[in-house]
């Protein structure tokens, strides 16, 4: 039987073809060694983990300045992806322009979130703040559904879709963009919080808001800034990850849960912790899938998370001191 579609050189009946089929398969079995498989799991895990890590950093920025866990963090990522689709694919703006416009727009959404949902709450208890961010995430998700519909969308990869092979493992160029942006964000944030006045002021709020206020820091403005910053970072995550994983209106909640898990695992408020937490969760999922069973891969990551918390109640790199200042 010949292949009518020129698609499958290997599904053939008959003697010569069967031998050929066998040979090709045999060669293929040889090329994928256990080592290259493991390396592939690592690459996949690190890429997926990087996304979680960026979301976790977003959580940390807001948590650091306030004491809020912003459950709408995942929606920023979703918005970043979808707005980018509108700008870049639908309107045809060039990549860099669309990128900047998207980040700006999502940053504005983040600031609106603070002004409309967080600041008006007069006597905020921690649960009230959580509920406010959950309500905001419901509204953003609903609005996104009305604007973009329920379909999923794609973005062209930044530098093509031709995979690179390293040590038998396949790497999409876009993976490097995701990992690269994680590194850039970490570097910029480190400089920002340690070298700039505003950054130092924000760190001061993180340590003790009352003391910072006494020292003349406008705490409200710092909170606004923290929302803007983490929304912008969320947007970057959304833009870079959409070419790999597509994007639709209700992806946010899943990303928020994973990111929250990563932030808690690393220790709330700790930026290196967020990166480590994200990468650990990503790699556990990937290795759990590859070596044990894919149905329970999310459960593996969560079990590890719980065990870590039981042993070290403030996460891997979280400090007990910081969490003491927080009411929650």
């Amino acid at each position: 039987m010949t292949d009518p579609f020129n698609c499958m050189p290997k599904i053939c009946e008959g003697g010569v073809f069967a031998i050929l089929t066998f040979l090709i398969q045999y060669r293929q079995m040889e090329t994928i060694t256990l080592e290259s498989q493991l390396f592939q799991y690592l690459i996949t895990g690190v890429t997926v983990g990087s996304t979680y890590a960026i979301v976790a950093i977003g959580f940390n920025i807001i948590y650091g300045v306030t004491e809020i866990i912003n459950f709408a963090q995942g929606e920023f990522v979703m918005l970043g992806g979808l707005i980018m689709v509108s700008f870049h694919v639908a309107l045809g703006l060039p990549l860099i322009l669309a990128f900047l416009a998207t980040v700006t727009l999502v940053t504005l959404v983040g600031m609106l979130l603070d002004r409309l949902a967080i600041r008006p709450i007069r006597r905020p208890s921690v649960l009230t703040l959580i509920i406010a961010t959950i309500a905001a995430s419901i509204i953003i998700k609903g609005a996104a559904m009305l604007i973009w519909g329920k379909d999923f969308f794609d973005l062209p990869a930044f530098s093509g879709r031709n995979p690179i092979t390293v040590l038998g493992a396949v790497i999409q160029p876009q993976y490097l963009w995701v990992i690269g942006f994680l590194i850039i964000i970490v570097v910029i944030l480190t400089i920002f919080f340690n070298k700039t006045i505003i950054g130092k002021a924000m760190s001061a709020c993180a340590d003790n808001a009352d003391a910072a206020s006494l020292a003349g820091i406008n705490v409200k403005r710092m909170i606004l800034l923290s929302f803007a910053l983490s929304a912008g970072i969320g947007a970057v995550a959304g833009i870079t990850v959409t070419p790999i994983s597509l994007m639709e209106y209700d992806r946010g909640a899943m990303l928020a849960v994973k990111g929250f898990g990563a932030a808690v695992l690393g220790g709330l408020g700790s930026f290196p912790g967020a990166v480590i937490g994200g990468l650990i969760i990503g790699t556990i999922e990937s290795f759990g899938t590859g070596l044990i069973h894919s149905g329970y891969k999310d459960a593996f990551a969560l079990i590890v998370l719980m065990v870590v918390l039981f042993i070290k109640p403030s996460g891997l790199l979280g400090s007990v001191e910081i969490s003491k200042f927080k009411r929650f």
Partner: protein
Amino acid sequence: MLRIAKLPIAVFTVLIIIFPWVAREISAISHYTDIMVFAGIYCLITIGLSLLMGYAGQISIGHAAFFGIGAYVSAILTVRYGLNPWPCMLIGMIVTAVVAILVGTPSLKLKGHYLAMATLAFGVIIYIIFNEEVEWTGGPDGMPGIPGLSLFGFEFDSVVRYFYLVWGFVFAAFIFTINVIQSGTGRALRAIHASEPAASAMGVDISRFKIMVFVYSAILASLAGSLYAHYLNFINPSTFDLFFSIKLLIMIALGGMHNIWGAIIGAGLITFLSYEWLYYFEELEVVVYGAILLIVTIFLPHGLVGVPGIIRSWFRS
């Protein structure tokens, strides 16, 4: 909130008892009794959760799991093994209690957001198990054919009968919880909420009390799960997902966390909002729901139970 007035309870009881008879006469709301059954089931969970969150100050984003364990134990034992539903309910509560102790003992040592994450993780793991263990749970398609309840030949087969059964349980739980709040345990819980070190210094065995309340709220959730399964005669995992845990959180916050009445009002309101009142908005429903939630959160930081207080202070000024 130490004393809980008896008059509102009496009035509320009467209202609940006459509800089906009033609803039946008005055709526009004749199906409200049905929705009230679900409201009652959710009330059972929120009453326990309110004790845990509002009084003991411990957050949980995993109670959908206990709700689910109760439902699945009841469903599996009655459908797969043909047992009588009542002992299954009890077994469900025991299983839940054991699970709650195993999870609660290490988890409740965690604070704030860490506790939130640990309970969230537990809830998601249980949900994955419901979804994956197809041989036992039927997987995502769920389990049909769960029998209804009957007692000494009396079948709880109509909506009205089940309504009384569920709300009977709600009242029992309600009264018991009020007793707990007004007893020494309640004082201990409030002490824990106010300051753990202080409570500990006063000789309160913090971890024991926290676990007791956690287990109590889990058992109530399990009972609610069994009642849900036997009423709907069908369960599937998506009922017990993370979003349901968050919905419970919303119920508590919307009603008012520091008051047991808040649990009932919140559960009732959210049930009617999501099952009845908002469907006119069609696809806008989600946005309207979120907006209502946000507005209540902003303007009523103490939840709906705070409304009388606000009105009173208006009149005074």
